[in-house]
């Protein structure tokens, strides 16, 4: 009889310990989350394989981009965020295929795929060591996700334990421009964000 009681108590304690472990240990998605390297604007942020620096973040209501020779305006229910910067590869040729806007609330907005012309401005670009490239990231976010947002760049979403660069932007919802145009250039830098400032 006493043995049976002991057995039941042991089983209960084991169940309690397991339940406690399940609810206090980090989640699988946290264990396998990218290793974050944080930085500020106009600062070179170093990941193990590449470094990234952002020099401007602009917010606009309407974005026009040149696609197949015609300039087309792109509307949105929120605002467009246009970030420009520079990326350096360190030891090997690589692509930066994942870009996200991380709002202060922790919501992730993907790099826009609505503008065909922006495809080769970061995600389709190849960065070789010693040959830094200008990068352009375009996001479509609701207006309340602008303030306190960060730009998150990683080589790919498929290697969860790789580095992820987070640049805290100083984007402001007080400084929303009515329209921005991205012009493609035949020579010099591949694009210009207009109006210049």
């Amino acid at each position, binding site marked *: 009889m006493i043995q049976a009681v002991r057995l039941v108590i042991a089983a209960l304690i084991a169940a309690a310990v397991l339940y406690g472990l399940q609810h206090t240990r980090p989640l699988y998605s946290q264990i396998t989350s990218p290793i974050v390297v944080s930085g500020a604007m106009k600062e070179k942020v170093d990941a193990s394989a590449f470094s990234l620096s952002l020099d401007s973040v602009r917010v606009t209501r309407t974005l026009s981009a040149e696609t197949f020779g015609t300039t087309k305006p792109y509307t949105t229910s929120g605002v467009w965020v246009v970030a420009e910067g520079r990326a350096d590869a360190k030891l090997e040729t690589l692509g930066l295929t994942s870009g996200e806007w991380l709002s202060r609330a*922790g919501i992730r*907005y993907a790099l826009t795929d609505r503008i065909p012309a922006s495809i080769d401005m970061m995600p389709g670009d190849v960065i070789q060591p010693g040959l830094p490239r200008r990068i352009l990231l375009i996001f479509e976010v609701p207006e309340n996700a602008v303030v306190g947002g960060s730009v998150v760049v990683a080589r790919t979403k498929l290697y969860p334990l790789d580095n992820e660069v987070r640049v805290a932007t100083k984007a402001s919802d007080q400084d929303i421009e009515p329209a921005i145009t991205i012009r493609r250039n035949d020579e010099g830098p591949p694009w210009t964000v207009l109006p210049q400032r």
Partner: protein
Amino acid sequence: MTESTPKPVRQRLYAFLIAGLGGLVASAVSFGMTLYDAAHPPTVPMVPVGQQIDTGRWFVTLHSARVGNIPPTGIEPFDPKQLMMVDLDVTNRSAEASNVLDHVVVLDDPAMQKTWPTIYLNRDKSIAGFFNPDMPERVTMAWEWPAGVPIPKTITMKVGRQIYKLRDNLYGASNWYDQGIAANVELPVAEAP
């Protein structure tokens, strides 16, 4: 050193019996639950056209259906096919951009068993990509309607439900999972020019 002595035959027999009975009980319970579920299918609400449906991950509002040859891009294709086009509003309520609407809005018709829709973003009149969180968009989903199958007066749309699991059963990872049907919507089919 103590030598391991073989356990008495009776003890081993008990162990086998208990394990076997446990397995039997588990399969009986599982079979019984399956039978019960099959006998009591969940009642799916029929939602009127234009009413917002909360699917868990998405807000979906179905508006209209039409049949035509020209896809929502407005460009007549080289090889025109009959398209069943459904207009709807979607809002992504999760914390991450997603483009997986295949299991969310399903055209429930025997002729449509293995056809996947193409989703068009009305804002751009082009194929839709990711839907960002909290950014409502009007989209058109287009299914290729097989030639020779008569077009019905109305179609039934199944709107699937998703749940968020903080810890899934396999890895303990967080993810969204399909869970049954949230609502059915009956749409009248209009003939588009």
